[in-house]
């Protein structure tokens, strides 16, 4: 009741403020100097009415503006400016917001479909409910994606008309398929969401499958536009010497030579792969954040148990996708290097080298956050104490890897510093910044996190497999061998030439991937039908774990913003690398400090909007509004009639 009174009071005050403002404005205008009415009437009679100085000024200004507009010849604008914020920042923020929502909208159907399929195979209704809970987030997010897509398109057309026109010259044949696919995505998305429980399971799964296919196709088209800006051509062995050559999709003047080469350009597929994996990791983390939000709001144990499980699944999806993400990142980086050493070196060794220190901090936080959540999750199960003694060792391993990964090879240096060092790298610390050390660190990080997951999986469970000791030892050997191999190649990399050292990344990656697969394959039968030493108490987890989930989602979002900046910023003063030069006042790479400010503001806007999405999605679970009755103590009768 008090709240209503306060709201009423605020409303009255606002109304009075508006009235006072309008009256004050009217007073000021009315009391402007005017000639006496009699004098005006007399002058009008004589045909010599005079204007006040203010009126004369306005008339003169209008006349001058009109004359200037008539004299000015039409010129096609190359760029237009946005006051205060600037064109680049405007487009940057709009593009990033569009991308964040788009990533979420593409990712959620992917794992909702998988969870629904698992439920269908296992005949367990709880999976179906969970998939539906995830899908609830899609409807509003889809509208947000489309809205920011429209903002971005208008922003580009208005602020960068010449460059946008150039991209249209190259890619206009792809626009119609894009729009048609977008229409189909809307059709499948809404039929998938609203058709839950209305169609048979197979038909519904088909809708989910088609939603994913169409969504992925849309992303592939959009990826062609943006990757063309970085690598306007493809790689092919044109002269038959066994070495891939660069085949430009455009002429030196920028005219289109081959739409196929522009579309299937050098970095298109690496970006596709990287984005699919990153989208799933990001989508999983946002869905887990939603579950955490609902968990913290939950009033009953049943609700807490449901949202705890949902948060666990969302985080599981995020971490499973996150583990191979560094490999996809290295593949993308290697392709960027292969396309242009200049781009690659700018990325890792030039202007952006310190950005990767921030990236290392973010990824380190993500690994720590994910591990922390798993360690807290062990408390849900009886018998969790047994494994907690390993946590400190995992923590040490993760912290060490984090430190190595955060060491840059090249530092931004002045000319005199470069001369003093004989290059742009530190004589000692740069050893830790080299690819050998970084590859080793990231692979050990992945193995450590996977170990945390294995410990979590075993907590409170006892294998009944007849060869459990043998299989557990086999897992330990595979794990140790992979770790030893990674470290061996990491150290050996310092004693070989650069060409050989680069190739060492491959056995390192394969050994880790093989270890993950082999250990998982052994673990599945090993813990099938395992006995439970205690019950898993969903909902019985410290509340801080839910904040950890939100922290992970936030770090993922910030990381996406940062990496989006480096991918786009790499081109430096080029709109299309090596083809279309940026001649606007923004044709420079801003400081990292400025870039991180823009990323932070974007993340805050995104989370603000995400709060709206979460709130709207949670409305579906609330009771319908009903008018209060006299019996409830209200002052209205059922049916809304006044008492």
């Amino acid at each position, binding site marked *: 009741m008090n709240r209503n009174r306060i709201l009423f009071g605020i409303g009255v005050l606002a109304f009075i403020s508006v009235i006072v403002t309008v009256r004050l404005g009217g007073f000021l205008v009315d009391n402007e100097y005017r000639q006496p009415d009699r004098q005006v009437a007399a002058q009008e009679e004589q045909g010599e009415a005079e204007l006040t100085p203010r009126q004369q000024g306005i008339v003169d200004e209008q006349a001058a503006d009109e004359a200037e507009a008539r004299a000015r010849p039409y010129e096609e604008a190359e760029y237009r400016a946005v006051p205060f914020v600037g064109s680049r920042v405007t487009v940057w923020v709009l593009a990033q917001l569009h991308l964040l929502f788009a990533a979420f909208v593409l990712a959620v159907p992917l794992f909702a479909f998988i969870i629904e399929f698992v439920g269908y195979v296992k005949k367990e209704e709880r999976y179906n409910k969970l998939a539906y809970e995830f899908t609830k987030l899609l409807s509003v997010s889809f509208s947000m994606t489309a809205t920011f897509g429209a903002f971005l398109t208008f922003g580009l057309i208005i602020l960068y008309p010449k460059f946008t026109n150039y991209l249209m010259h190259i890619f206009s044949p792809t626009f119609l398929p894009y729009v048609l696919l977008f229409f189909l995505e809307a059709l499948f998305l809404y039929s998938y969401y609203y058709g839950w429980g209305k169609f048979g399971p197979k038909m519904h799964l088909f809708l989910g499958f088609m939603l994913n296919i169409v969504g992925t196709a849309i992303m592939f088209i959009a990826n062609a536009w943006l990757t063309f800006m970085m690598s306007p051509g493809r790689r092919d062995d044109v002269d038959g010497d066994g070495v891939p050559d660069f085949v430009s999709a455009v002429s030196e003047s920028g005219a289109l030579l081959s739409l196929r080469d522009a579309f299937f350009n050098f970095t298109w597929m690496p970006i596709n792969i990287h984005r699919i994996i990153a989208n799933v990791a990001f989508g999983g983390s946002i869905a887990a954040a939603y579950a955490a939000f609902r968990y913290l709001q939950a009033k009953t144990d049943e609700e807490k148990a449901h949202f705890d499980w949902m948060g666990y699944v969302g985080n599981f999806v995020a971490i499973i996708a996150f583990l191979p993400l560094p490999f996809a990142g290295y593949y993308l980086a290697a392709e960027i290097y292969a396309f242009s050493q200049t781009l690659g070196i700018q990325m890792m*060794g030039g202007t952006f080298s310190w950005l990767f220190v921030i990236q290392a901090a973010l990824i380190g936080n993500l690994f720590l956050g994910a591990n922390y959540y798993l360690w807290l999750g062990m408390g849900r199960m009886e018998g969790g104490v047994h494994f907690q003694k390993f946590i400190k060792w995992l923590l040490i391993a993760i912290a060490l890897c984090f430190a190595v990964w955060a060491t840059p090879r090249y530092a931004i240096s002045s000319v005199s510093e*470069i001369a003093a060092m004989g290059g742009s790298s530190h004589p000692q610390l740069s050893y830790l910044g080299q690819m050998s050390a970084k590859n080793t660190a990231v692979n050990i990080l992945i193995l450590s996190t996977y170990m945390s997951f294995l410990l979590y999986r075993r907590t409170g469970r006892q294998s009944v497999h007849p060869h459990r000791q043998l299989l557990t030892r086999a897992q330990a050997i595979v794990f140790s061998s992979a770790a030893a191999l990674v470290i061996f190649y990491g150290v050996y990399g310092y004693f070989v*030439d650069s060409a050989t050292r680069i190739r060492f990344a491959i056995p390192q990656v394969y050994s880790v991937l093989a270890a993950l697969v082999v250990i998982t394959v052994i673990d599945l039968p090993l813990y099938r039908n395992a006995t439970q030493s205690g019950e898993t108490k969903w909902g019985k987890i410290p509340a801080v774990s839910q*904040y950890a989930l939100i922290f992970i989602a936030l770090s993922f979002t910030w990381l996406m913003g940062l990496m989006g900046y480096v991918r786009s910023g790499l081109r430096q003063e080029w709109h299309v690398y090596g083809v279309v030069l940026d001649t606007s006042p923004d044709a420079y790479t801003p400081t990292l400090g400025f870039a991180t400010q823009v990323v932070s503001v974007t993340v805050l806007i995104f989370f603000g909007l995400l709060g709206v999405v979460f709130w709207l999605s949670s409305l579906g679970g609330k009771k319908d509004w009903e008018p209060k009755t006299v019996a409830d103590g209200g002052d209205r009768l059922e049916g809304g009639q006044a008492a």
Partner: protein
Amino acid sequence: MKLSVPMPVRLVLLVVGTTAFYMYLGQIVPQREAHPPPPVLISAEMTTEDLVAVGAELASGKGQCLVGCHTVGQSGPLRYPDLDGIGARAATQIEGLSGLEYLAQSLYEPAAFIVPGFADGMQPIDQPPISLSEDEMKAVIAWLQSLGGTPTVTLDTELGY
């Protein structure tokens, strides 16, 4: 008395605090705005010594030679060959090519000869995105010749490309 912070306030603090922390990281790393390299003026009356100075400037700027690619006077695991002494070494790298011809080939056709132990990767620097002019190429060659050798290039030197 136990102070209880409402959940929405905690969430806002978490979101704003974490974002502020990451933004702070961005403020404490070295800051530099990277502007497009300024045009280097090469006039017809420039001597070989002048070209060496201009070439050194180009190597650290527009030419992007010392920005993460090559080094001067470093050893150990390197990305690309160290340039110390290249002025003297150039004449002995490929049989039949003079020092000047070798250096010109290295800049115009870097894939023609790869120093053993290093990977192919350098792009012709007379082409986009670096796009050095012919006079700028001569200045870079003069600077390379000065690293352990005697520079001979003038603006009248024919490079053959």
